[in-house]
């Protein structure tokens, strides 16, 4: 067990080192793409705390991404707060919103839980859409006052890498703590977990807040990266997209969703250059995952390596 964790640690170090080298390749496009992927990877990882670990499927996860984004943008620009206050405040706000919504949602399970997250998600979208004076409505909140020291493309890349790496590390620790194990127990059998004295509602609420908070981190990065936040970020299709990223990578592995985010986002950007029918491709991908890859790409890799080791 310890050996397995050690391997994960060193692989992560190698990955971060490789990412540090990306700007050296000299492609601005690649730097931008990698920045976007890292943000989406964190977004997908945050959702997986809820889906993979606690077994609660949320259709409204974009709400916390958007709240983090809008809040960070508004604090930085409208209130002219420094980044060191704006970003943490935005993250806390996303977490508080998740606590509020979670308080109601965790009373329900399965599809009812999912539908309520969708309803709250769309409520956040409606507020962003209608509250023109604060959010800019359907014009979006443009011209985010990004601090100068991360104003440059490369500086922002390193900033994102640092924030995402630290957040991922923190998420990893949370998921591999007693809390994470208890979440898995609740996912596998809510009743049985309560027999051993687990307050399953409180635990699911905590998972909801953790997921929302980290989505808020991703959202605030996204707002600064784009120098704007748009109401689409809160729309249910955004929740759907991050759900598909998580599914594509693999629910039952910690890093799966990050891989799913990388693959799906790269495909989306690539395919959008040739055709406007990206949703058709997205639908096909979803179909393939559900029919053939229930455990996503990570599950596929495990299956292949198991086959391989059996043969040799």
């Amino acid at each position, binding site marked *: 067990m310890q050996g397995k964790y050690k391997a994960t640690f060193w692989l992560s170090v190698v990955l971060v080192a490789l990412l540090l080298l990306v700007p050296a390749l000299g492609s601005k496009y690649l730097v931008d793409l990698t920045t976007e992927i890292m943000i989406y990877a964190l977004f997908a990882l945050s959702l997986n705390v809820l889906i993979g670990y606690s077994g609660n499927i949320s259709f409204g996860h974009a709400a916390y991404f958007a709240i983090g984004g809008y809040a960070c943008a508004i604090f930085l620009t409208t209130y002219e707060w420094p980044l060191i206050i704006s970003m943490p405040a935005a993250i806390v706000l996303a977490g508080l919103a998740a606590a509020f919504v979670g308080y109601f949602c965790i009373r329900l399970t399965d599809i009812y839980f999912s539908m309520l997250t969708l309803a709250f998600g769309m409520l956040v979208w409606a507020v962003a859409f209608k509250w023109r004076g604060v959010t800019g409505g359907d014009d979006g909140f443009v011209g985010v006052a990004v601090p100068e020291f991360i104003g440059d493309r490369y500086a922002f890349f390193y900033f994102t890498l640092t924030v995402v790496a630290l957040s991922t590390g923190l998420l990893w620790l949370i998921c591999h703590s007693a809390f994470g*194990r208890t979440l898995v127990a609740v996912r*596998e059998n809510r009743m049985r*977990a309560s027999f051993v004295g687990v307050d399953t509602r409180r635990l699911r609420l905590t998972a909801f807040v953790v997921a929302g908070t980290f989505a808020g981190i991703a959202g605030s990065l996204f707002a600064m990266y784009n120098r704007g936040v748009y109401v689409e970020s809160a729309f249910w299709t955004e929740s759907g997209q991050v759900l598909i990223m998580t599914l594509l990578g693999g629910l039952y592995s910690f890093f799966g969703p990050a891989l799913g985010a990388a693959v799906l986002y790269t495909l989306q950007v690539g395919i959008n250059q040739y055709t406007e029918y990206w949703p058709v491709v997205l639908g096909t991908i979803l179909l393939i995952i559900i029919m053939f890859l229930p455990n996503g790409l990570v599950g596929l890799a495990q299956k292949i390596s198991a086959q391989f080791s059996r043969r040799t």
Partner: protein
Amino acid sequence: MALLEVDNIRTAYGLSKVLFGISLTVEPGEVVALVGRNGVGKTTTMRSIMGLAPPQQGSVRWMDREITRLPVYHVAKLGIGYVPEDRRIFPELTVWENLDIARLPPIGGAKGDGWSEEQVFELFPDLKDIQSRKGGVLSGGQQQMLTIARSLMGNPKLLLLDEPSEGLAPIIVETLRDRIHLLKTGGLSIILAEQNLEFVLYLSDRIHILEKGAIQYTGTPADLRANPDIQSKYLTL
């Protein structure tokens, strides 16, 4: 004062009534058995005590405190461990992790008091060697041991064991019986629902025979042994 007092509970699932006034008590260190054929209300009695199927009437008192309508996790935290019949462990967690998540300090004790993994492994040595294996790959006997071991990690004062011997090979049943006996001599109170009469006669202090949701007979193992009529009336198929 009895540890647990169940007073005239009536429990129904929707419209179908299952328990028609069950009363029983458990003293500290006592093993009380519930026997009877399938569907007489043994499991429902346990579920009512645990809060999974709260009774419509009657009361459950635990250490002189009303627990009739408390949520399940709360009852568990008060020191009642439940090992249900289907003994499903958490298949994706390892044996050690299965134990780890159930850790609760004993009532009135501090963190670190009570059962440790080492002590649990001493009682169930088979589990020690497979502690890093996932629960889902264990045999039925190992899963049963793990479920009981896991309940112990919560330091219960009372253990509800629902048909622990069901579906296990005779040799495993014997091992299990001896382990449960060890727990009994350690002072743990147990309510045991069982169909295996030998198992019950060996372990219990008092036996309640249930039929149609009510207690029809109460006696010691010696009474029951001496009374083949009762045995054939309520227990043989």
